[in-house]
């Protein structure tokens, strides 16, 4: 049923720390790896070793340059995946019932056997979280690794989304945003977690923790004093003098 649940018991999602993300793409790669071997059909590529490789990814890392009014620009790596919206427009537009939002934990999923591949859900998503599989011709999206987080057959430490497990800097946090005492809720509150394009009324669950303000220290190091003239000694000193003579 593509009508949304009135409310969900949990609101599982990610808090993504833009301050610690180094843009290594490990989250995107591990996502691709897990979802190519998981319960659904593989997350396909076309011409992966050809001239124009293309494929479906559920997580993509964009890199932005932010230029403040004063001071040096900063680089922010911005991993983007499904935000598991409370009022997910991708679900209600689905004509077949393939898209649905789970009442128990709020995860937005696609039943691949019902999907006709019309692509309307991807048009309805403001964030570009859904991509058509080029081989299976069905819509793919982040499942929040629903086949990991409840999986009793894997070690407890692995029962988090693959992207969270893979992140080498701990920039990705997984938890329940419905619980104000959860680690992600507290982290988001402490760091002023951002919801993406909230004015579109989608009610995204995921939060982006903005970079910490380090501009004061940055401006202090933007123009370092020129290094003092030092005269080289030894071999370098001889080389310096020899080159000087050559003109």
């Amino acid at each position, binding site marked *: 049923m593509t009508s949304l649940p009135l409310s969900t018991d949990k609101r599982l999602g990610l808090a993504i720390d833009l301050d610690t993300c180094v843009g290594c793409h490990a989250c995107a790669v591990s996502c691709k790896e897990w979802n190519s071997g998981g319960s659904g059909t593989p997350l396909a590529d076309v011409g992966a070793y050809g001239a124009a490789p293309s494929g479906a990814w559920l997580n993509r890392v*964009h890199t932005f340059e932010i230029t*403040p009014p004063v001071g040096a620009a900063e680089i922010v790596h911005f991993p983007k995946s499904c935000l598991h919206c409370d009022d997910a427009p991708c679900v209600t537009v689905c004509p077949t*019932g393939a898209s649905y939002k789970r009442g128990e934990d709020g995860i937005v999923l696609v039943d691949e056997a019902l999907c006709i591949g019309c692509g*309307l859900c991807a048009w*309805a998503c403001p964030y570009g979280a859904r*991509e058509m599989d080029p081989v299976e011709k069905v819509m793919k999206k982040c499942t929040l690794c629903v086949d990991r987080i409840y999986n009793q057959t894997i070690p407890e430490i692995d029962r988090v989304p693959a992207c969270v497990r893979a992140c080498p800097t701990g920039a990705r946090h997984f938890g329940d945003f419905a619980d104000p005492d959860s680690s992600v809720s507290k982290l988001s509150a402490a760091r002023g977690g951002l919801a993406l*394009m909230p004015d579109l009324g989608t009610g995204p669950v995921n939060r982006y923790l*903005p970079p910490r303000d380090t501009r004061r220290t940055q401006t202090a190091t933007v123009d370092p004093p020129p290094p003092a003239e030092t005269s080289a000694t030894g071999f370098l000193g001889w080389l310096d003098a020899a080159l000087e003579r050559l003109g």
Partner: protein
Amino acid sequence: MHPAISVIFFTVTSGAGFGAMTVIGLGFPLDGSRLRILILCLAACGLAVAGLIASTFHLGHPERAWRALSQWRSSWLSREGVAAIATLVLFFAYGLIWMTTGTRLAWLGALSATGAVFTVFATSMIYAQLKTVPQWNTGLTPAIYLGFSAATGWLVVAGLGDAEAPAPAGLALVVFAWVLKLAWWRQSARARLSDIGASPETATGLGFRGRVRLLESPHTGDNYLTREMVHRIGRKHAGTLRRLALLLGCVLPLGLLAAIVVLDAPSAFMLGPAGVMMAGLFLERWLFFAEAEHTVSLYYGHR
């Protein structure tokens, strides 16, 4: 947005087909030999069905298309499918009764006309409901779909009919549809992402730190999202294509209609303006998609 040929063909052709059903159902004057009724009903249903079949060509799994009839409670695409089939059944019954008994059941005609109008409305709402494409997210979108559907439907019925067609009504429908479209173009020029204050700053939420610019795409190549929603081909020629759409879709049909009235030409000549107008609408519909800006483009360097 990517202008898929199948979807352009579908919206224009089905629009004309359901428009024709509306016009016939509402009692367009026809003397009605059996053959004439058969031709008319076949043309109306044929256009509608051809469009519907074309629309399945852009599906990843056309063999599962029947599943799209299930979610009418929430989905405009599903409502459109249900309404299209219900309308075709109603109109088929209307035509069959008319052909066999010679009586036009006014109530059944009105019912199929209502169904046809709702079907076109549902088609337009597939686009008008999307907040992600501000240029489409307006009440004028259903208005232009309904206006063009009525105008092309009228021209098709007038061309295939045997009675003297009331040409001023046709002229008025074509003019009215294009007045709505001009209003839509005006509105869409003011509803681009930059006009409504959407930018990479608002998309990332990082505007409070400075001006945001895409430095590096996630991947060096394109992807489904960029092909489908960051489409920019043709915007360069948008002005020329608009003029061409206006010429074919409006000026020529009006000129031909006026000539038919002045020369007192047989009504079959109405098929001329019908064909030319639909050609113009293919261009209009192509622009409807190609010029539309989607919020996801803000993450891919669009400003």
